[in-house]
């Protein structure tokens, strides 16, 4: 798992976000595009790309893309 790939996948899961416009420190819940649908996309992306089951409660605990990445890396082991 690589943080830069993860940020790109994250961008792919949010509609109307240009590739390269997000970074690990991005506080994703503050994005204007953020919604419960996007949350659903993130959970699906994590499952499809990384084979990890993420719950919405776990997603809630993360503020930045990097924090989410740490959480997933932990789960994948």
């Amino acid at each position, binding site marked *: 798992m690589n943080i830069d790939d993860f940020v790109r996948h994250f961008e*792919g*899961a949010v509609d109307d976000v240009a590739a390269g416009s997000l970074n690990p420190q991005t506080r994703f819940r503050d994005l204007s595009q953020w919604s*419960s*649908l996007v*949350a*659903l*996309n993130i*959970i*699906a*992306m994590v*499952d*499809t790309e990384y084979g990890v089951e993420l*719950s*919405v*409660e776990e997603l*809630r605990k993360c503020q930045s893309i990097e924090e989410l990445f740490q959480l997933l890396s932990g789960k994948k082991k």
Partner: protein
Amino acid sequence: MNNPFELTGRTILVTGASSGIGRQCCLAIAANGGTVVATGRSRERLSETLRSLPGDSHAGFPADLTRAEELDKLVQQMPQLDGIVHAAGVQKYLPLKFISGQALREMLLVNYEAPVLLTQSLLKHKALRSGASILFISSLAGLTAVCGNAIYSGTKAALMASARVMALELAPQRMRVNCIAPGMVRTPMAQQMATVVSAEQMAAHEKLYPLGFGRPEDVANVGVFLLSDASRWITGQTLIIDGGFSCQ
């Protein structure tokens, strides 16, 4: 005169009997005098279901119905059946952008292919008595849209469409085929859905139901009616059980 709503003397196969709606159907069938033949993947939870049934004529056969050998083995062991409840099913949220061929095929396999092939096999082995009632647990999702449910909805709508054709084909043998389309029911499947959409969203969603979310008994009781003689003239139908959601 016999009570047409009772299932006395009738043997009913229930799939997905280990939990949720399937399990509740077993309880309701037994409570109304029927004999249950239960199948599910979990040997343990199947035994638990059987232990909780009144009466001692019931039987359990653990099986994974997506595997041809296990489906065949189950069918070979079947007694003469007066009904089937196809309650086995899985749900996973897959927004359109993230649908994979594999995930699509998996859900289609459990929710559509397995119940159809099981029905076909039972018919071929002459395991269904004349006058048998076949019931598919479909879903309101097969009729209405919720984001992330494209595949699940597809599998549930497929059941409804095929059930209508089966109803026509089997009418000469006085067999009936119907679907139940439940709205959101409090089952383990719903709990798993809540881990993805959050408890708050679920609560907000429940406000859209005039009578709130359903309980497994709400579906099982209608199942008993459709399996019984009281619904003798009902076939090729989908009964929507949704606490008023779709009437708005």
